[in-house]
């Protein structure tokens, strides 16, 4: 039953991404040409609100016993992987004009060629898993 809750979170996430046009290939190009503030506004305000929320959670965590604390998981720091992987992701992001969340949203919107992006992403993931031990 808990899984149904995650489906609902996903539905809400998709509606926001679509309504704010973050799933649009056109918007991604506009962002990388620095010709509008729109996508930067989306990213920066999302980061800002998340940052405030995390600070409040951390503040509240202080007075709570260990088991009641809300865990805040930090991403593992591996600068070579973060940077090189990041650049490779960026190359694909601008070509497909969609990051992972929007790929699924496009499928829901019946924009079926996006299936190719998803299949590509799965192949890319399997390649990464195969090469994982040889990469930084």
């Amino acid at each position, binding site marked *: 039953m808990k899984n149904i809750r995650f489906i609902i979170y996903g539905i809400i996430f998709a509606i926001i991404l679509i309504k704010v046009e973050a799933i649009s290939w056109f918007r991604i190009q506009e962002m990388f040409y620095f010709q509008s503030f729109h996508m930067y506004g989306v990213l920066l305000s999302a980061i800002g609100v*998340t940052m405030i929320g995390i600070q409040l959670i951390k503040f509240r965590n202080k007075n709570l016993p260990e088991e009641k604390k809300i865990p805040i998981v930090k991403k593992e720091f591996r600068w070579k992987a973060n940077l090189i992987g990041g650049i490779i992701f960026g190359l694909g992001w601008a070509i497909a004009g969609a990051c992972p969340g929007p790929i699924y949203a496009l499928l829901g919107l019946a924009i079926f060629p996006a299936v190719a992006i998803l299949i590509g992403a799965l192949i890319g993931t399997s390649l990464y898993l195969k090469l994982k031990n040889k990469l930084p």
Partner: protein
Amino acid sequence: MKKIIDQILFESWPWYIGGPLIGLLAIALLIFERKTLGVSISFEQIWALINSSKETFKELYEKSWQIWFVIGIIFGGLLIHLGGAETEFIAIADTTKATLTNLGISDFSGYVPIELFNFDFPQILILLLGGLLIGFGSRFAGGCTAGHSIMGVAQLAPASIIATIGFFIGGLISTHFILPSLLAL
């Protein structure tokens, strides 16, 4: 009142509405579910599912909330599609329109250009290549725009700041030097 509801349902939202809502969703996931927002890990889960035995399937069913989350994302898109609430024309900057017109894009209706999003060759291979780089890169970097650029940067995590700088280096290279040649194919 009806006008406002129509606006919410059928028109696009400005960044100062959509952006903060993404942040609130990330925080709600953290507080109510104790989950850290992230999407690209779902690629690994789907890959495991494709290659799975019954055990991995069961494990995924119990542990991998992101699988359910991305199913929800598909449903969300479907809801908007069935409700006819899609934006007909994305109001991108005129300068971007001019730039893209020079690259051979002429149809600016819908969320994506029909000149690239179709099942012809080589377009379908270009999308596949884009996806391949997205899948490989996001798993290598340890996350994508959601997990790194929003969740991670909001924590000022060094990994996420570096990854996000990478996202933009790659994106700028692609948009300015690679995509123009691909669109000319």
